[in-house]
């Protein structure tokens, strides 16, 4: 697995286009949110900024990279090549996605640290860690499922749009308007409960047990995404 991960890391840094679209742009956008934190805090809260930067990295960085990587490796038969070796399927997927996941974690940690330094830290760091990990897991799962519908890296530019724009929209909707109205709908939408969890962790004022209940919809999306992926994902290009 680590051999694959290392080779993916090499490829990631050799492919400038992927590096810029998936890793530089989310950081730049997030930096803008942090710099304008007073404006966005007035619009929602500091927790909203934490949630929006989290999902900017998770959606534009991790999710799109997951889909593009898997579609690309499948299209050029690299997945089939890897399956000709002794490593199992889960090891292949883990190896392919590990570098993008680690980079996303580093990005989120760096950006949230910057936000804490300029605007004040989160109320509950462990809860924020849970929110970040759950959100990233959900986006990886959705990426695996979307990769099942994606024929090529070019096709990924289209297939990733609904989820990418969707979770950013949900995050902004929940972050700005809260969940007092349409509570169930907002929490069940992908990214809705994770946004509320991240906001609770940053802003405080909500019991930890109440916040942890918000994990259920997010983990539910992980399960749905993995089930979809297991049905949709193919290791070879469609004939």
């Amino acid at each position: 697995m680590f051999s694959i991960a290392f080779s993916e890391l090499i490829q990631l840094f050799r492919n400038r286009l992927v590096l810029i679209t998936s890793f530089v742009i989310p950081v730049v956008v997030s930096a803008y949110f942090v710099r304008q934190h007073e404006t966005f805090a007035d619009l929602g809260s500091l927790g909203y900024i934490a949630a929006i930067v989290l999902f900017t990295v998770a959606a534009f960085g991790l999710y799109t990279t997951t889909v593009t990587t898997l579609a690309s490796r499948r299209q050029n038969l690299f997945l089939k090549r890897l399956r000709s070796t002794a490593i199992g399927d889960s090891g292949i997927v883990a190896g392919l996605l590990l570098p993008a996941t680690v980079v996303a974690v580093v990005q989120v940690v760096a950006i949230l640290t910057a936000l804490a330094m300029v605007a004040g830290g989160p109320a509950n760091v462990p809860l924020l860690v849970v929110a970040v990990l759950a959100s990233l897991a959900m986006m990886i799962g959705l990426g695996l499922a979307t990769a099942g519908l994606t024929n090529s890296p070019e096709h990924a530019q289209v297939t990733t749009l609904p989820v990418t724009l969707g979770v950013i929209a949900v995050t902004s909707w929940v972050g700005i308007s809260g969940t007092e109205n349409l509570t169930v709908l907002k929490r069940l939408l992908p990214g809705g409960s994770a946004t509320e969890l991240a906001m609770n962790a940053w802003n405080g004022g909500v019991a930890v047990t109440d916040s942890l209940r918000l994990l259920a919809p997010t983990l539910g999306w992980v399960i749905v995404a993995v089930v979809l992926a297991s049905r949709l994902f193919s290791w070879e290009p469609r004939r």
Partner: protein
Amino acid sequence: MTPLNDRRDRCCHWGMSTTPVIEVERLNVKYGDFHAVKDLSFEVRRGELYALLGTNGAGKTSTLETIEGHRRPSSGTVRVFGRSPVERDVVRPRMGVMLQESGFSPDLTVRESVRLIGRLTRRTDDVDRVLDLVDLTSRAGRKVAQLSGGEKRRLDFATAVYGTPELIFLDEPTTGLDIQSRDHLWATVDRLRENGSTIVLTTHYLEEAQQRADRIGLMHDGTFYREGTVSELTRTLPAVIRFALPPAAPALPLHYVMDGDGKVAIETFGLQKDLHTLLSWAQEHAVELRDLEAGATRLDNVFRSISS
């Protein structure tokens, strides 16, 4: 063409045995309503070079991919080294696979690609030795995207033979290779066989299969049309005597047809006897048999007989 007895001697010297490395029993592969492989059964013995040939759409790729463990059979059993080929951690360290298409990441270098796939096979070898084996040392630092088609095939071959596996699948190994690279590849295959490796080959170059295969499985419409040694396959069709006759030659003593080149073609299952009859007749009538050719039928004629 290598005489059969020579090949048999070579087989025995190289340690071919009757122990099956691959056992396929009543294999069926279906894609929806399409029945790609139908009740196929065969064995590949340790140390032999087995060629799986067939017409387009005959089912050889589905068969090969099932044996390699890339897909599961719809029904029937496939055993490789006595295990299911989908047990990758057990079977794959003992087998190398040269895919029909390369399947390498274009952004990795040749050396990185061999090192990566080599490690993942869990066999041990020296990357430089393997690169030297396939004459890619000078390309070691180049990205795969910069390689020619032939160089990519050699890279594919390098990963298949990394660590000298016991069983090697070669899927169209010489497609896109120049003649020198072909000779080099076959020389390497010969050395692998001396080392006891078993080879499963698919190729569209029938002369390669005819020269090198110990046995051939000739597939058509999802199952075997014929299976056996080259001799066994070709003896089912008549040998051919072909020559040009001068004008006004007396009547021939044997039944014949005129082929497309205006030559006389005599098909026979008794080549030596009929050739003797023909030569005696020519001697007696002082007739010159120009461009005389006589020989057992070739594998491509067996192939053509499938569709006739």
